[in-house]
């Protein structure tokens, strides 16, 4: 799966990493739903760090489209309320 961290670039994820990102994605939604700003930022940071660490950055000249778009790293809690809802970024049953 290819994800794009908005304002940052694209990464290719293995299925294993995709599952872990999906888990963090769901936890972001939960944090947003209970209005827990510090928890959201912590989990979102973790999600970004996981993509950075385990994802394979796509070359700049690659023309493939992304499957999932992750909001920008500087996303505020207010913005997150709109972004992380329902099933989050990654649908639970693809």
């Amino acid at each position, binding site marked *: 799966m290819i994800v794009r961290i*908005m*304002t940052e670039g694209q990464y290719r994820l293995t299925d294993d990493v995709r599952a872990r990102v999906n888990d963090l994605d769901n936890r972001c939604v939960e944090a947003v739903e209970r209005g827990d700003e510090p928890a959201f930022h912590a989990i979102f940071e973790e999600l970004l760090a996981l993509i950075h660490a385990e994802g394979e950055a796509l070359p*700049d000249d690659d023309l493939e489209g992304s499957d*999932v778009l*992750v909001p920008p790293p500087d996303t505020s809690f207010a913005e997150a309320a*709109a*972004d992380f809802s329902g*099933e989050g*970024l990654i649908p639970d049953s693809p």
Partner: protein
Amino acid sequence: MAGMSGRMSTVIKAKVSKLLDRAEDPQETLDYSYQKQLESLQKVKKGIADVVTAKKRLQMQQEKLEQSVVKLDTQARQALSAGNEELARTALERKQLGQTELQSLDTQVSELEGQQQKLTESEKRLRAKIESFRTKKEVIKAQYSAAEAQVRISEAATGVGEEMADVGLAMQRAVDKTENMKARASAVEELEAAGTFEDLTQLGSGQDDIDRQLAELTTGSEVDDELAKMRAELGSGGAPGGGQLEAGKGGA
């Protein structure tokens, strides 16, 4: 796909379909799309230039403020050695305000530097994708029938369209932040215009108001501490002449 991905997907689909707008003829579509991509690249370049301009404006303010802080410190020393504690206190209050502003400016400048770097990287990615699209477009033109070409074109345009949407978002965020900094810069300029960091000996009638604002903005204890320190230094080092301050006494 819920949330952001849904919203952003819509933006991207719109970008891509806009790119493929003139679809009568694949050749034309390709050239039109490429043209749009180059325009987008130009916009990013302009965006970077705007951030750099805003940053330079803040850096000029930094330089001016740094000079004012040094000057106010000197004036406080001179006032104290001339026995004018009130004037020394005013000078130190202003110095403290100046230092607070300087710290804030440091933060703003590094924030804009971050935005500049981010946009520069975005520009680099977009340029690489456009270049890749250009190569692909020539291949498509040369090798595919009209029907096949349409599919290949949308494939290629999706990647560039997504990058264009992404750069658009990066630009929007940079513009928002730059606007905040501009407002900030104007606030500092207003303080300057009000004479807050001016030579104390040259203050005019607006001074009472400035002093009142300063009293609200600065905490007395820090000024007291600095005043005490300065007094101790002057006491041990011997008092230099305070000629320049004679003029200032009247205005204090």
